[in-house]
């Protein structure tokens, strides 16, 4: 393959790319801006950022020791931002989306909850009004609320005045109950007398009474190394980098269609240059532009957001180059299958967006249904994002780059083969 025409084609495409201000902005600045935004959202607690608190409204209509204990627990939780409006105000805030959950503690809740704690009487109901678009936050609040209700009720029943009064009242009722058997009476009275004896002991300072969480947690984010915080920018720059290099490559394909429309391919084909040289030139320039797009994005992320290649540098470049080749051949595919620039632009935009969405560039793939997670394995963007994640924040060695690189190159070979077989060469 003669080098002079090949080099000329690459140089010309690069000149055209850099002379198109819109293409440069779309390829370099827009991905950086969007990836920075997504990175700031998904950077995770390890980045020393204060986590966003869930807005919760609490209406305590009971005002018992138990209800006050629940409210105090909620107010002290680091994941919640608790307000105490009226019930009407709280529901209005939930409807407007300003508050995720409103908790209404009804009158008599503490007394009923105390009795229900020992299986006596109906369970009282807490009112929860929630924003259905904040389902995940609602689930979190339910979990947190359960913890504080159990703590407050058990603390009161095992150490508070309400608990003492309850035991004093229950002992004669149990002994005279006609519904309980003698053995049952004996065991329950024994339990309550033990509790009474416990109440009569002087309380030790710092020794909480009641149920407490029987375990603590030691949290460790598994990243590239010990005490290395997860840097969400690494993932967002990988995702957005892939998205925009696919857009850049697709744009090159559309440019080829425009060149055909302008009669440029007649001039190119009339020169003594082989068809393979023409396509190789386009692929090479597309690869260079796509690689620049990706590397500039990551360069920015490294300088500004401290993203690091914690895995293999060679692996990072192998995955990046494979991504760029895959994107360039995707552009060639656009040129081969597209009928007109306008129709190709619409279809290509949809295809790229689908690829990056399914590839986990926008949201992590783990939230997809299981069948969809399997389906994303046939999306090249998934392998690209996974490969770059592996080489950056996951800190996996060169071995982690081999499979993504091989799969991306296989996609590139398939795109190339289809493009070459379907390319319209004849110009009447």
């Amino acid at each position: 393959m003669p080098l002079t025409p090949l080099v000329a084609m690459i140089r010309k495409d690069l000149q055209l790319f850099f002379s198109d201000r819109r293409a440069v902005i779309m390829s370099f600045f827009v991905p950086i801006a969007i990836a920075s935004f997504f990175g700031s959202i998904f950077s995770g607690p390890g980045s020393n950022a204060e986590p966003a608190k869930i807005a919760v409204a609490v209406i305590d209509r009971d005002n018992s020791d138990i209800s006050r204990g629940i409210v105090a627990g909620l107010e002290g939780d680091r994941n919640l931002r608790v307000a105490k409006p009226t019930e009407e105000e709280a529901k209005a805030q939930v409807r407007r989306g300003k508050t995720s959950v409103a908790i209404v503690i009804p009158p008599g809740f503490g007394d009923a909850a105390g009795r229900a704690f020992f299986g006596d009487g109906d369970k009282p109901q807490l009112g929860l009004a929630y924003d259905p678009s904040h389902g995940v936050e609602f689930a979190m609040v339910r979990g947190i609320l359960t913890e504080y209700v159990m703590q407050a009720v058990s603390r009161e029943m095992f150490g508070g005045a309400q608990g003492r009064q309850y035991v004093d009242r229950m002992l004669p009722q149990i002994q005279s109950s006609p519904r309980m058997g003698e053995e049952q009476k004996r065991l329950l009275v024994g339990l309550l007398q033990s509790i009474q004896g416990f109440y009569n002991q002087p309380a030790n300072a710092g020794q909480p009474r009641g149920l407490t969480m029987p375990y603590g947690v030691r949290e460790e984010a598994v990243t590239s190394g010990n005490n290395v915080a997860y840097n969400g920018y690494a993932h967002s720059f990988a995702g957005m980098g892939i998205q925009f290099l696919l857009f850049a490559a697709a744009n090159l394909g559309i440019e080829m269609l425009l060149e055909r429309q302008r009669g440029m391919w007649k001039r190119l084909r009339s020169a003594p240059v082989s068809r393979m040289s023409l396509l190789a030139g386009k692929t090479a320039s597309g690869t260079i532009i796509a690689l620049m797009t990706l590397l500039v994005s990551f360069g920015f992320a490294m300088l500004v957001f401290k993203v690091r290649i914690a895995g293999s540098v060679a692996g990072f470049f192998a995955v990046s180059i494979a991504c760029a080749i895959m994107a360039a051949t995707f552009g060639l595919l656009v040129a081969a299958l597209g009928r007109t620039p306008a129709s190709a632009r619409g279809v290509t935009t949809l295809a790229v967006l689908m690829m990056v969405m399914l590839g986990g560039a926008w949201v992590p793939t783990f939230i997809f249904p299981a069948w969809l997670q399997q389906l994303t394995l046939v999306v090249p963007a998934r392998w690209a994002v996974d490969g770059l994640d592996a080489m950056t924040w996951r800190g996996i060695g060169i071995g982690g780059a081999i499979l993504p690189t091989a799969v991306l190159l296989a996609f590139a070979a398939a795109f190339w083969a289809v493009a070459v077989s379907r390319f319209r060469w004849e110009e009447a």
Partner: protein
Amino acid sequence: MRPFVEKRRESGAAALHFPPVLTVTNLRKAFGPLVAVNDVSFSVERGQLVGLLGPNGAGKTTTVSMLTGLLEPDRGEVIVAGRRLSGDTDPAKRRIGLVPQDLALYDELTARDNLRFFGALYGLAGAALDAAIHQALALVELADRAGDRVKTYSGGMKRRLNLAAGLLHDPDIVLLDEPTVGVDPQSRNAIFENLETLKRRGKALLYTTHYMEEAERLADRIVVIDRGTVIADDTVAGLKGRAALAGGAPATLEAVFLSLTGRSLRD
């Protein structure tokens, strides 16, 4: 097969022999059931401009596309300077220059960068490429605008640059597909002068046009093609003479053309 008569040009006392630079023999091309070009033969010699005329859809563009390798003929052959044209990378393609009807230029690049790219496709590089660019721009009088982006050019300037791009590699035969479409009289006249200069330099030119006055002014010979076949191949005077012999009034080339191809509208 239409036999070729080897032609001679009289120059002073000596009779010089000019073998054809381009010889087209029995070309045929069909697109499905539609036969676009059928048994087309003609030739073009050095220093000669041959007008290829025909109504819309007559087969002119298909013929030119086969001459430049854009289309593979179903049958027949194209001989360029004694060599049969075959394949994409045939060195014989270096002897052909194409000036397409479309302005096949990159608007965002300068004229010099456009020519640098097109020259490199023909293997030109370094000082040879610089010299070729200089000569081509000088011929079309755009040397002083060489560093300007093509998008700043007028339509006439773009047409002249389009011509320069086809001449860059110093081809023996230049195929011009309606090179004056949409240009003002001044630019058209400039292009005519360029073509006459090329003829004087011994280039063979095949000129496709719908403008009869252009063909009448420039062409040494006219090939009329209709419904895919050559229906006339003669000098302008010869074509007019045929009309006179048929008892018509003193004919213009347009009248002759209409008498050959009919007056019905073509799609």
